[in-house]
């Protein structure tokens, strides 16, 4: 059944005259090769690796850049810098020295978060790491009390072995924040978990609320972020965050509150913007808690940026590009957290491709079918986890592995 839908929707994009999905990672003729040692090439690669970790990382899959092999840059319409990268990554948590090869396009906009399209051949890594993740998951499910932790690592770099997976999960979750916040000039690194506590959920997901510290370069500032993470070994991460930027740690009162995604405040049911006065983080935490409780199954919107993955590049290539850009950015700005219900479809008329990048769960509520458009073609970079139908997360869709050349979850999705 889904095969049929897939077939139909596969060709929808083509019939709308949108650029071929397979073009997303190709190299434009106007691109210029740059030395891989160049700082900006390394920065673009690091953004791509953060994206990789956000999408495919887990407590046992934490990727680091092994070597940048080739880098190209292109300036589009004089406002956007696009980097095409070929690089190798290694899983720092894996005992084997397996190296995966990746290709990515990273686009830095002047006023927006980076867009990234990524393709990696991660299959060697997946089975073993999935088993380890599953063990951690089951172990945590068995615990009587929700887990709590402080100052990881401690001042002396010590991480309790029991807290290692929690720390590594924070690292790959923070990769989402870092991916969103990075620019060609500014880079980040997660240095510490100040506090973490687990929220028990009625479904099978694990949920954590973290307060983390990011080290910002080149300003050398320390940025404090609150991060909500939902995770399941078979799913990709869902992360939401809120960062304070404080010029000096001693005086948090002075710090500006970062507008959540440009507008998050009004979107909070019953909360409104006053929630962000003073040190918003605690109130925010509470409100988030309520929201999570209510919204276990359907309200868990995926992280906003996914929608734009890969879409930007093609869009700029055609004459119609400005139109899309304008419309897309407004939507992005006003979106904050919850903007996805029902709105998904209109935004992407004829551009089914973008939908693939969505993670999170809302895609699954009854609209499962649209999700498979184009999956046969280039969805190799998507992890199979998104293929869940309906609201029950355990309902894995069987898949033919050839649809997922190099798919992250190859051979994994049998119920």
């Amino acid at each position, binding site marked *: 059944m889904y095969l049929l839908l897939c077939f139909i929707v596969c060709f929808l994009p083509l019939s709308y005259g949108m650029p071929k999905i397979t073009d997303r990672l190709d190299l434009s003729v106007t691109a210029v090769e740059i030395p891989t*040692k*160049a*700082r900006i090439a*390394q920065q673009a690669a690091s953004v791509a690796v953060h994206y990789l970790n956000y999408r495919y990382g887990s407590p046992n899959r934490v990727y*680091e850049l092994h070597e940048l092999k080739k880098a190209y840059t292109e300036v589009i319409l004089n406002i956007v810098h696009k980097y095409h990268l070929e690089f190798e990554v290694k899983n*720092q948590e894996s005992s084997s020295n397996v190296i995966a090869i990746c290709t990515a396009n990273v686009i830095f906009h002047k006023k927006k978060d980076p867009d990234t399209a990524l393709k990696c051949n991660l299959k060697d890594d997946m089975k073993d790491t999935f088993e380890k993740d599953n063990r951690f998951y089951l172990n945590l499910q068995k615990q009587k009390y929700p887990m709590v932790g402080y100052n990881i*690592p*401690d*001042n*002396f*770099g*010590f991480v309790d072995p029991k807290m290692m997976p929690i720390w590594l999960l924070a690292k790959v979750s923070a990769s989402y924040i870092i991916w969103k916040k990075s620019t060609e*000039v500014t880079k980040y*690194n997660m*240095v*510490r978990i100040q506090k973490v506590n687990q929220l028990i959920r009625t479904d099978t997901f694990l949920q954590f609320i973290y307060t983390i*510290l990011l*080290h910002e*370069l*080149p*300003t*050398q*500032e*320390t940025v404090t972020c609150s991060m909500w993470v939902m995770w399941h070994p078979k799913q990709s991460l869902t992360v939401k965050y809120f960062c304070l930027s404080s*010029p*000096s*740690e*001693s*005086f948090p009162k*002075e710090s500006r509150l970062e507008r959540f995604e440009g507008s998050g405040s009004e979107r909070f049911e019953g909360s409104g913007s006053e929630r962000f006065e003073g040190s918003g983080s605690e109130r925010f935490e509470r409100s988030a808690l309520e929201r999570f409780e209510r919204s276990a199954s359907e309200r868990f919107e995926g992280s906003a940026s996914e929608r734009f993955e890969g879409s930007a590049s093609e869009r700029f290539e055609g004459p119609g590009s400005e139109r899309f850009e304008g419309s897309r950015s407004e939507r992005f700005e006003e979106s904050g957290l919850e903007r996805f219900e029902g709105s998904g479809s209109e935004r992407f008329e004829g551009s089914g491709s973008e939908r693939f990048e969505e993670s999170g769960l809302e895609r699954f509520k009854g609209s499962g079918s649209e999700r498979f458009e184009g999956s046969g073609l280039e969805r190799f970079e998507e992890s199979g986890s998104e293929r869940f139908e309906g609201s029950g997360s355990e309902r894995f869709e069987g898949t033919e592995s050839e649809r997922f050349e190099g798919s992250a979850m190859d051979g994994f999705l049998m119920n």
Partner: protein
Amino acid sequence: MRTPWLFLSIVFATAQSQVTFVGHQVLRIHANSEEQLALVKSLERMEHLKLDFWKEPVSTALPIDVRVPRKHVHTVKSFLESNGITYSVMIKNLQSLVDEEHVSMLISELRNGTYSFNYRAYHRLKEIYTWGKNLAAENPRLVGRRRIGRSSQGRPLHVLKFSTGRKRPAIWIDSAIHGREWISPAVAMWIAKKITTDYGNDPSITSLLNKMDIFMLIMANPDGYVYSRTKNRMWRKTMSKKPGSHCIGVDANRNFDANFGGNGSSKAPCAESYCGPHVHSEPEVKAIVNFIQKHGNFMVFITLHSYLQRLLYPYGYTQVPPENAEELATLAREATEDLASLYGTRYTYGSIIQTISESSGNSIDWSYNQGIKYAYAFELRDEGQYGFMLPPSQIIPTAEETWLAIKKIMEHASNRLP
């Protein structure tokens, strides 16, 4: 080094009442020349004297400690005196020491010296000061300690001088200028100790120190270090107070007179890269500047930071390359290759502006402009996994590999002495 263990084993043996050290003396001998050194070595070969060297005759810069059995004390002393070799009696009657409670005192002195110092840990400031004092005391001919100034909060800024002769072209190494970069002073202390043990044993360091002096400022920002240990692990700056601002501290590595206040530093007092109210406003920076300018003959300037595994050379404030850019780049490549040869740790290298970003008022740009042709900044381990909170198990490996790179730089400079 054998000394503390040797003494303890003597104590133990005596306690067993098997051996007696009545009348045994421990002499400290200073050989002033190669000839004298050779003579002392020949003494060692005379087995019938049953001499027990606690510190072997190694070089003219290092003391020689020897336990002499009672019946040979007179012979040995005559031999030394007739050859004009100076010595002092460290212990007049070893047995009495063993008997008395002086033992515990001596043991604790040995235990607290730099031989038993735990290089695998991050220490409190007081322990670091004591260590520095001990290093100088244990190596009086090679190491001297000098206060070159005081921090904002009044803490002394001590420089260790490694020198075997009159004022020579010099090498500067500083660490801990940013409070939170704990690996930096930990590595510097290990390197300082390494210099004292290598001198006389390792040919390249021995010949280097016979041509050049080395100055090490282990704790360039003691106030910041203490604050990072007690209040805020992420503290970077000094602790100076600025009238009119509630924020404390200046980024010492933006306070130097090299495009001061330019891009890559901040004018906001609350910012982590605050350049300060004016050039050299920080006493920590002023002390370094004064010392180096007064000395006037530095050839190498090295500063240790963390993290990100980089070896950087000037400039940070301009794209214009330094005049010997090619030489600096080649030397950086060789140094990072030497570094990687030990544990495979990969470093990138380049000028600050190419590798990180624009930066103004930093120490290597300033020192380079003073005419110090080999100015390098190390960003030590790691790449971000632990960042500033590097586990102490990595201190020694980091120090060992960094030492190889620093040696390469120092040797290159010493081979190009005018």
